[in-house]
């Protein structure tokens, strides 16, 4: 079989037993790969209702059929398990040389079960699987761990996906970091699941050759694709400034949340210093910092931008800068000083915690501090005022090590606000327990819906309709007729990206999304799929994720938005006054479920499931 290794690796950490299992072609056609494999294995191998931090949780790593080829942006991989943060589907996507090494080792997926008796790391050396002692690595940060493992084995071709202190200490939004610090699996606490299994890292060395069905045609086509992508409008922005290049649009159009969603008007904020992120432009960045872009494996764009801080308290820091980091650790905490945001991002990746969740939970604590809900006594003497970047540097490690207030914040904003009480849940920005990404959804209503209905909680990557909204392709302030179908279409569309495991930033490539991908899929695998089949796979996997959540106890009330979205209209800027009413939101949900072909309660119907070929899921759900 071309494009696929055709087998998965199952590792039991409790019994230290491993086995491989074949993945037949019919299964590949049905689920394509990546996310599709992940959810399907999770559904099959995991019992419902388990504690996410118990040995019963199953951790799945999966790659897609394009992995390790020359198709632009093919290095994505997905990690899935039941999320300790949301209690529903946990899913996190990374992008690195780890996936290439894993694919070349001859696998499409890795299932990890059980719990090791003591800290362990896994070394997958092609067909040889070793359980190695990780006592020495426990407590070390992700980058250090990566380096030590590579040095111990003595080969840079070894690729490492590791957790930091946060994962070890079961911080509910701990991440897995692969390839030094290059790209990480941030969201939904997959690092905590790894930590609960006493698994410090998964190191891989793959020496096999990835073969495709039509090599010459693929090479010719990809040469054309590289030219197209480097001239594309989105990828040009990504290449020049990375995701912050697109972020400027949100900041200047009053859609970037400021001070825990208390403002969207950046011009009103008082602190003006030379390194202020409101100055961001390619020229300014080049002038202020040594600014270099680096790429994920096989990516012609290179959206990661590294800034070398040359002066001030964070002198010497060299780290990447991204829009979500700029929002979460910057604007949302009232911090505009770029070197501090870069430093905070580096701290998060080293300790292995999700940047977005960390920023949101700290911004929440800052607002509690502002309102007197938290006092100096609660914070252990830290002045948690908005804009205090020194406090940010103190609190981040406390979260990862679960010290003092950090122990409460490590639970995520939902649990932390329930614990603190005093009305602090009214200002906790999350959906299903997952903290909000950098979009003020009160003025981006289709995005509001997509955050609410996403299978993993407030998720900006499930539909990503904020782009069309901010550019005026659809009305951002009113949820109009057809927006429901638009969200559904985008969800199915982005799901397909996550099955083929390619990056969303490859969007400039596709003239005709489904037929282009069907063609590429045929060149790689030799399997002819119709565009209609590909279209269905996205919907099938989305329904499967939904079925997983339903099995974990999901009901309509879980598709929710935080109270602030309803109670506090945007107070300033051009989007002033915009908010959602509960009635409006109820109708939006009705519309969405209708467009999905689900019941009013948001349950997939038997008819829909059978139409998608999910007969056994329908049977298990009892519909």
């Amino acid at each position, binding site marked *: 079989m071309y494009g696929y290794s055709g087998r998965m690796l199952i590792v039991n950490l409790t019994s230290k037993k491993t086995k491989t299992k074949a993945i037949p072609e019919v299964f590949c056609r049905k689920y394509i790969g990546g996310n599709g494999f992940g959810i399907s294995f999770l559904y099959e191998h995991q019992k419902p209702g388990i504690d996410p931090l118990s040995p019963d949780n199953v951790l799945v790593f999966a790659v897609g059929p394009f992995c390790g080829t020359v198709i632009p942006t093919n290095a994505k991989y997905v990690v899935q398990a039941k999320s300790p943060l949301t209690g529903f589907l946990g899913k996190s996507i990374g992008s690195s040389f780890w996936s290439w090494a894993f694919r070349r080792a001859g696998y499409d997926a890795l299932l990890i079960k059980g719990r090791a008796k003591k800290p362990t790391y896994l070394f997958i050396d092609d067909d040889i699987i070793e359980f190695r002692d990780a006592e020495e690595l426990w407590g070390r940060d992700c980058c250090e761990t990566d380096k030590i493992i590579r040095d111990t084995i003595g080969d840079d071709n070894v690729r490492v996906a590791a957790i930091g202190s946060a994962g070890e200490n079961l911080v509910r939004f701990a991440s897995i970091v692969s390839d030094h610090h290059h790209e990480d699996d941030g969201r939904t606490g997959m690092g905590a699941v790894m930590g609960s299994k006493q698994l410090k890292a998964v190191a891989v060395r793959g020496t096999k050759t*990835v073969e495709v069905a039509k090599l010459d045609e693929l*090479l010719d086509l990809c040469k054309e694709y590289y030219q197209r992508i480097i001239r594309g409008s989105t990828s040009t922005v990504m290449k020049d400034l990375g995701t912050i290049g697109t972020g400027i649009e949100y900041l200047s159009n009053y859609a970037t949340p400021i001070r825990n969603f208390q403002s969207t008007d950046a011009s009103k904020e008082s602190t003006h210093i030379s390194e202020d992120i409101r100055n961001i432009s390619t020229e300014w960045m080049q002038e202020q910092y040594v600014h270099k872009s680096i*790429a994920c494996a096989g990516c012609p764009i*290179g959206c990661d931008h590294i800034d070398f801080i040359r002066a001030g308290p964070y002198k010497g820091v*060299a780290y990447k800068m991204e829009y979500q980091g700029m929002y979460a650790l910057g604007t949302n905490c009232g911090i505009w000083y770029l070197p501090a945001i870069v430093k905070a991002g580096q701290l998060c990746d080293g300790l292995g915690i999700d940047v977005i969740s960390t920023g949101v939970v700290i911004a929440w604590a800052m607002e509690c501090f502002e309102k007197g809900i938290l006092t100096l006594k609660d914070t252990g003497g830290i002045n948690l005022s908005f804009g205090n970047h020194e406090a940010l540097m103190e609190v981040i490690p406390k979260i990862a090590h679960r010290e003092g207030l950090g122990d409460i914040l490590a639970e995520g904003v939902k649990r932390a606000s329930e614990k603190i009480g005093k009305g602090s849940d009214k200002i906790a920005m999350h959906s299903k327990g997952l903290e909000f990404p950098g979009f003020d959804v009160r003025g981006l209503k289709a995005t509001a819906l997509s955050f609410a209905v996403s299978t993993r909680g407030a998720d900006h990557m499930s539909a990503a309709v904020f782009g069309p909204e901010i550019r005026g392709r659809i009305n951002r302030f009113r949820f109009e007729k057809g927006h429901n179908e638009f969200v559904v279409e985008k969800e199915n569309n982005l799901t397909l990206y996550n099955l083929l495991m390619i990056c969303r930033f490859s969007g400039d490539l596709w003239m005709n999304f489904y037929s282009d991908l069907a063609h590429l899929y045929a060149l790689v695998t030799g399997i002819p799929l119709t565009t209609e089949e590909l279209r269905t796979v996205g919907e099938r996997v989305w329904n499967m994720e939904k079925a997983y959540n339903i099995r974990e106890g999901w009901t309509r009330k879980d598709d929710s938005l935080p109270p602030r979205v309803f109670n506090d209209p945007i107070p300033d800027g051009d989007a002033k006054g915009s908010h959602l009413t509960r009635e409006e939101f109820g109708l939006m949900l009705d519309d969405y479920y209708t467009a999905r072909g689900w019941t009013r309660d948001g349950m997939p119907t038997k008819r829909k499931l059978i139409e998608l070929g999910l007969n056994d899921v329908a049977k298990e759900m009892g519909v």
Partner: protein
Amino acid sequence: MMLQRRWVSKTHRKFVVSDSERCIGCRICEQVCSALKVGGFNPLLSCIRTVRIEPAFNISMACRLCEDPTCVKSCPRNALSKDEKTGIIKLDEAKCNGCKWCIETCEFGAIALNPVKKTIIVCDLCNGDPKCLSYCPTEALSLKTPEEISQTTRKKTIMPLVSRISE
């Protein structure tokens, strides 16, 4: 006279050079090279190799066509030779037993072992038209003579001075 002509011809030998300021470390060159040489994607079988030094230094390296190649000198079986016309390192597969001595002596790590054939792999410039160049998305790779390299360098140093004078 003879000596001079030989020298000139040698400076016209081109080899693959990589601009570390442009290189983003994507390793597409490795993928393409292995695909063309062995029919599948495997960076370990590529004639060009990328070095990534965190956080942001990237460069790709291939055979530099040394004037006095250590690999040729070190080969105990005389399996390697330098093509007088092109400067490319030639391998006599029948003589190579995969002892890897050349891999050890090459200062640029530009030689790899083909585990299938059990012989070595070294850049052959794809008959004068290296395919990695045409795939490089940032145009970091180029095929240059030493003179062309030094020209570019000279210009790069001088240009800022020129603009300073004209101000």
